[in-house]
């Protein structure tokens, strides 16, 4: 097996997609991750590289409404896609509910993993409103947190479930 350690960069192409309501275009090589594009051209800081292998949830963003790890999505997959991060969800009613529940129940300490958690919960609430059977705790099953022991997060999820069943 040979590994070329000084390869020529692949010709960049334009990745054009909608980010938080704005269309952005960026010249990148096609295998660049969505996470890197967001943090670079997108000026996003809420999606973070916790592991780079899609196993921690810190880079969770909404892709066409679904919560996905941004580090596993590549630039070539982004045309005509819609990406949302917490920076763009400030007016979103589901995010407002999530934010309030997380803050009230002290579901964060350092808060580094929290935007990813918030995105997962927003995705869960949206699915619930579309009539899908959703377990909100399952929605955050892929978001690792090291500070809180998940106590506050479980309480926030319970609070969201209660208010969900009321609507």
């Amino acid at each position: 097996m040979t590994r070329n350690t000084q390869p020529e960069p692949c010709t960049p192409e334009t990745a054009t997609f909608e980010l938080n309501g704005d269309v952005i275009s960026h010249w990148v090589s096609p295998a660049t991750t969505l996470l890197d594009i967001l943090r670079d051209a997108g000026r996003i800081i809420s999606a973070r590289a916790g592991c780079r292998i899609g196993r921690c949830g810190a880079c969770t963003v909404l892709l066409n409404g679904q919560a996905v790890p941004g580090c596993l999505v590549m630039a070539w997959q982004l045309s005509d896609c819609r990406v949302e991060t917490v920076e763009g969800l400030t007016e979103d009613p589901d995010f407002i509910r999530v934010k309030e529940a997380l803050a009230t129940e002290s579901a964060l300490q350092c808060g580094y993993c929290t935007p990813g958690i918030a995105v997962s919960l927003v995705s869960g609430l949206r699915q619930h409103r579309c009539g899908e059977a959703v377990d909100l705790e399952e929605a955050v099953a892929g978001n690792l947190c090291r500070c809180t022991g998940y106590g506050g997060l479980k309480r926030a999820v319970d609070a969201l479930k209660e208010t969900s069943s009321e609507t």
Partner: protein
Amino acid sequence: MSAPISELNFVSARRAVRVLRPDSPSQAVSLARQCRASYTAGGTWLQPAYERDQCWPENLVALNASWPGFWGLEDGSNGLTVGAMTSLAEMARHPLVRDYLPPLAKFLNLVAGPGVRALGTVGGNLIVGGDLSALAMALDVRVDVVGHAGVRTLPLSQWLRERTSEDLLRGFTIPDCRGWRMSLEKLGYRERFSPTRATLACVHDGYRLRLAVCGEGGLLRLAATEAFLNGWAALAPDDFGAVLDCELVDHGWQDTHVRMALRRMTTGLLSEVALGT
């Protein structure tokens, strides 16, 4: 799948990776041959491997879910056909999966986290011997493969033995298993998504029992154990333990404790599919 490791060229940076976007499956196969490229669909298994080694294939061939037959579920006279690019999340939600494969939706929660399930494909999972491959083996799934000579359909077990580097998995068909009793269990490291130590699938089709395992020791249809159980159904299920252990050891399952666990998990699953109660 893709070219064997020795044939691919690798590069040490993502930005050097070329992503080829063929218009059709046959073009994909040609490109894979010519450029000695690796296929990519969800990328949820391969990308971690590339990141770990800081080593990417020079060329990737992007698969397209809109190619006919590559995505979605359809049932017909042959059974349930599943497009390889269907995501794990889509499988979990699909009403046909509730009918054909009742335990699957819940089981998928153990296979990967929700974000990875949204991106990862069933085809990708089968190809790397992931958790779904045990069930697929036990169900005698038949795969539709696009090769340089066109499309062919063959049993999964045969394809896994014979596949060439440019074979492209289009989809697979599960026989009409509605009404069959099936049970799945994964032995991992914690409550949710973790590497598989062993995943066991146990299926009773009304006539006979089918058993398969995947994980640390590889993918294996437990033919000898099945034969024992199917031929000697009158005996208490516990007696199959020695046969199972031998079969596992013969096929490279080295860890004693995992084999011990598998014996007991099998007993558990057997009683669930009603050989016991």
